């Protein structure tokens, strides 16, 4: 098993916030803390794109580098986790993170910072696996149950992929090969285009010699 990563397909994300809700529900996250959120660019404008963002479990994580108490560690699956018993809530990790992943619960009326909370890739933390203490501090440990993160598994359009970086990259590549690229990506069939019957890519005789492959026909009942 290599590195656990998230990959969000902006062509498929419909900004339903199902991933955010799944995360909150799975780990019983308090108000004010969003381990995952959906960011939309050019909202309301034709061509808008949404992407689901959380901790990206960086290979060279800046939060690990700047933490003054060294409370971060990386599991053998490449998941970046931290020890809340050691965290002092200084916020350096928040400033260092390019994704705004670290969250700080507002524990009082004057905005006192609590201990940092972030996406754990549903891998819990440094407490006994699947114990109450682990759930209270870090949320559910789905990896120990042989499951992937709730956000990725709950994604209705499968825009958000989670798992081994190489595997989900292959899934995404397979997807792009089917739906085409550039000018081929058009209309309702953009995200879910199926290959026309008997016209697989690379099979000779499916198009005019020397011509670019014809755009695939939309699925039955689809409009473009």
């Amino acid at each position: 098993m290599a590195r656990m990563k998230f990959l969000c397909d902006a062509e498929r994300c419909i900004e339903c916030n199902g991933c955010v809700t799944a995360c909150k529900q799975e780990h019983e996250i308090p108000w004010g803390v969003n381990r995952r959120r959906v960011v939309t660019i050019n909202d309301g404008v034709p061509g808008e794109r949404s992407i689901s963002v959380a901790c990206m479990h960086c290979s060279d994580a800046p939060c690990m580098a700047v933490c003054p108490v060294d409370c971060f560690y990386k599991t053998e699956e490449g998941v970046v986790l931290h020890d809340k018993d050691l965290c002092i809530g200084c916020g350096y990790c928040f400033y260092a993170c390019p994704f705004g992943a670290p969250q700080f619960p507002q524990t009082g009326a004057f905005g006192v910072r609590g201990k940092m909370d972030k996406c754990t890739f549903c891998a819990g933390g440094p407490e006994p696996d699947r114990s109450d203490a682990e759930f209270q501090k870090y949320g559910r440990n789905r990896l120990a149950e042989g499951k992937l993160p709730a956000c990725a598994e709950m994604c209705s359009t499968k825009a958000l992929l989670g798992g081994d970086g190489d595997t989900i990259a292959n899934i995404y590549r397979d997807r792009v090969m089917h739906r085409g690229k550039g000018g081929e990506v058009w209309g309702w069939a953009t995200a879910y285009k199926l290959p026309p019957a008997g016209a697989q890519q690379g099979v000779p005789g499916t198009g005019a010699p020397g011509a670019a492959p014809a755009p695939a026909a939309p699925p039955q009942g689809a409009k473009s």
Partner: protein
Amino acid sequence: MITMRTMAAIVAAAALALAGCGERPQVINYKQGTYQGKPDTPAYKNAPFNGNKQQWDNAIDTRMQAQNEYARIRD
């Protein structure tokens, strides 16, 4: 005839012009700290996998492949 003052001005101008070539990289190289917290166990260590990494790998791989609907609906 180039005077000493002119020569000094030329040398100063050349030094100023070349100063841009001596720019140092401004990227900080962070040094990773050493984890000071409690140890954690691998995901496959406890029940239900009880240390069987192969079984855990298979379970995770099955879940990962389930995310590829082209593999599920093809033919």
